[in-house]
C-alpha cells in the first residue's frame, strides 16, 4: 500500500499541481529556475489584482518607535536604526501565508479543481482554508499534531482549530514524514489541487510583500529600506520577499533568521513536543536553505540561498522576551513566528546607523496555544526547564529555555552562509550520486547558491576531501 502510493508520486503530484516540470529541466541538477518562475505563475500586477479581490495584502507598515528608542539607549552614539514592522496579521486568516494561498487557490478554481489539499501544521492551513472558503472550494489540511501519547502541540492545535473554523477538514496525525504519503493518498482519492507550499504560485504570491515594503518605505521616506529581515523555515518567505524587493528596484539587504533548535530531531516522537516553536526554526531553515529540492514537488520554487545576504539565529527565550516587549511597549500582541525576525532586528539595529531603516517583514495573529504563556506552560509540563537568564549562553533546545531579563541580553548567533553553501554541494553530491558535475551543472549550482563557478569548484574539492578523511 505505502510503496504503491509512493511509486506513483510523480504521476499524482503532476496531476494535482498541473505543472509539467520536465519542461524546465536542463541537465542533471540544472534546471531553468527563472523560466519556471516566469511561465508557470502570474505576473506581479496580476497577483496584486488577485490578492486585492480577496483582501490579501496592502497591510500596514508600522514604525516601532518605543523599541527603536530602547535600542538606541543601549547602542553606541549615532547607532540604532529605525525599526519597522509589516503587520501581516492584517491578512484575512492572520498571516502572510494568505499571500501564498491566494494565488494557488485562484489557480485551482480557474482550472476546474473542486477542492484543495495542503500538508501543513502551520498558518498556511488556515490561509488555504480561508481562501478556499472565498472561492467556494473544499479544503483538506493534513497536520502533524500529536506525539505518540496523544499530546498535541498547543500552537498546532490552535492552527488546526482555525482551519476547521474556516470550514476545512483537518486530518491530525502523529509525528512522522509519512504525512506525505497520507497527503498523496488524499490527492489521489479526491483529485483535488495540491496547494503545495513550494510551487511557483506560492512563492510568487509572496513577492507582493517585498514589493509593498519597498514602495511603502520609498513613498514615505524617499528611499528604500537598508535591510529587511525575514523569518526563515522552508525558505519561501525569504525567496518571495527578496524577489519582490528586487522587482521594486530595491537593493535592500535580505537577512534570514531562525529560532535555534539545533540538536532536536524533526522526526523524533520524543523531541516533537519539546520545541516551543513549530516553524521559523533551524529544523527547517538549515536543511531547506541548503537543499531546497527535498519537498513534495520535483522542483522547489523556494530557493533562499539565491537571495540571502546573511543568516542569523536567535534563541527561544529571546523570542519570548521580544513577544512580551512588542505587546507591552508597542501595544501589538502578535504571534510567535514573525517575532523571530523582530528579535534579530533588535540586535542588528544596534550595528546600523541611526538614519538607516530595518524592516521586520511580518507578524501573525496570536492567542490561545500560540502565546508565550501557553507555550511556556506547556514546555514546563513536558519537563523543559524555564528560567530567567542569558539565552545565548544558557538555552539548550529541548531542555532549557532561558528568558532574558533585559533588552541588553538580546543577541544573535551568526550562521555563516558559507556553511550552508557547503552543505548544498554535499547534498548535491548525495542526491545525484556523483562527484563530477558538468559546466552547465556547475553554472546552475553557482546561481543556486549565489556564488561563482570557482567557488563551486573549491567547495566540491573541499567536500570530497572531507568525505575521504
Amino acid at each position, binding site marked *: 500500500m505505502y510503496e504503491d502510493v509512493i511509486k506513483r508520486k510523480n504521476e499524482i503530484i503532476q496531476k494535482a499541481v498541473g505543472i509539467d516540470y520536465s519542461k524546465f529541466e536542463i541537465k542533471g541538477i540544472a534546471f531553468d529556475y527563472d523560466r519556471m518562475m516566469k511561465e508557470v505563475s502570474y505576473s506581479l500586477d496580476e497577483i496584486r489584482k488577485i490578492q486585492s479581490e480577496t483582501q490579501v495584502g496592502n497591510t500596514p507598515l508600522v514604525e516601532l518607535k518605543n523599541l527603536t528608542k530602547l535600542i538606541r*539607549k543601549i547602542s553606541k552614539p549615532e547607532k540604532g536604526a529605525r525599526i519597522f514592522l509589516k503587520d501581516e496579521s492584517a491578512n484575512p486568516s492572520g498571516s502572510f501565508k494568505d499571500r501564498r494561498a491566494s494565488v494557488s487557490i485562484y489557480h485551482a478554481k480557474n482550472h476546474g479543481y473542486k477542492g484543495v489539499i495542503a500538508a501543513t501544521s502551520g498558518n498556511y492551513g488556515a490561509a488555504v482554508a480561508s481562501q478556499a472558503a472565498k472561492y467556494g472550494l473544499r479544503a483538506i489540511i493534513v497536520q502533524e499534531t500529536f506525539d505518540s501519547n496523544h499530546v498535541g502541540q498547543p500552537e498546532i492545535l*490552535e492552527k488546526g482549530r482555525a482551519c476547521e473554523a474556516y470550514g476545512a477538514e483537518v*486530518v*491530525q496525525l502523529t509525528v512522522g514524514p509519512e504525512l506525505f504519503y497520507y497527503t498523496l493518498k488524499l490527492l489521489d482519492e479526491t483529485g483535488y489541487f495540491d496547494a503545495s507550499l513550494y510551487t511557483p504560485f506560492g512563492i510568487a504570491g509572496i513577492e507582493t510583500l517585498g514589493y509593498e515594503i519597498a514602495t511603502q518605505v520609498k513613498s514615505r521616506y524617499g528611499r528604500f529600506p537598508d535591510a529587511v529581515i525575514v523569518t526563515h523555515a522552508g525558505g519561501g518567505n525569504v525567496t518571495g520577499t527578496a524577489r519582490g524587493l528586487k522587482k521594486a528596484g530595491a537593493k535592500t539587504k535580505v537577512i534570514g533568521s531562525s529560532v535555534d533548535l539545533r540538536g532536536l530531531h524533526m522526526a*523524533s516522537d520524543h523531541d516533537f513536543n519539546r520545541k516551543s516553536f513549530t516553524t521559523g526554526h533551524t529544523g527547517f531553515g538549515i536543511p531547506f536553505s541548503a537543499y531546497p529540492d527535498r519537498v513534495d514537488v520535483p522542483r522547489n520554487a523556494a530557493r533562499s540561498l539565491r537571495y540571502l545576504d546573511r543568516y542569523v539565529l536567535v534563541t527561544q527565550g529571546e523570542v519570548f522576551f521580544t513577544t512580551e*516587549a512588542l505587546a507591552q511597549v508597542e501595544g501589538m500582541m502578535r504571534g510567535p513566528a514573525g517575532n523571530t525576525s523582530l528579535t534579530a532586528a533588535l540586535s542588528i539595529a544596534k550595528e546600523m546607523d541611526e538614519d538607516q531603516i530595518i524592516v521586520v517583514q511580518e507578524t501573525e495573529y496570536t492567542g490561545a496555544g500560540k*502565546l508565550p*504563556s501557553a507555550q511556556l*506552560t506547556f514546555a514546563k509540563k513536558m519537563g523543559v526547564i524555564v528560567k530567567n537568564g542569558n539565552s545565548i549562553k544558557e538555552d539548550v533546545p529541548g531542555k532549557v529555555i532561558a528568558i532574558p531579563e533585559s*533588552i541588553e541580553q538580546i543577541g544573535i548567533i551568526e550562521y555563516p552562509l558559507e556553511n550552508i553553501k557547503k552543505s548544498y554541494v554535499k547534498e548535491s553530491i548525495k542526491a545525484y550520486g556523483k562527484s563530477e558535475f558538468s559546466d552547465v551543472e556547475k553554472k546552475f549550482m553557482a546561481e543556486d547558491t549565489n556564488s561563482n563557478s570557482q567557488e563551486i569548484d573549491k567547495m566540491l574539492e573541499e567536500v570530497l576531501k572531507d568525505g575521504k578523511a
Partner: protein
Amino acid sequence: MAEKGDWVKIHNVVLDPSNRVSSLPADTKKVPLEAWINGFLNEDGEIGEMVEITTLSGRIVSGTLAEVNPRYIHDFGNPVPELLKIGPNLKKQLEEGSV
C-alpha cells in the same frame, strides 16, 4: 452512545510500526502513525466502535469512534513568572532619561 448527525472524532492507525519508513529515529519507528478526523456521524454508534463519518470536505471516512463533540483544549496557559517583569522593566527603561 452517539447519534447519527453528531459531531464526532474518529481514530485510525495509518501505519503499524513495522510498516513505517526505515529512516525514522528509533523512538518514532516503534510507534504507529495514527490519524484523527472530525465529522458528522453517519449512523448511531458507541465509543470504540467502527463508524462512518462525513467530513467537512464531504468525504466519507470510517474509523473508531473516539470522541463525541470533540473540544479544543489548548488555552492561554498559566501566568509565567519568568515573563511578568519584562513589560514593567522596559517601561521603566523608556521613562528613565526621557527628555
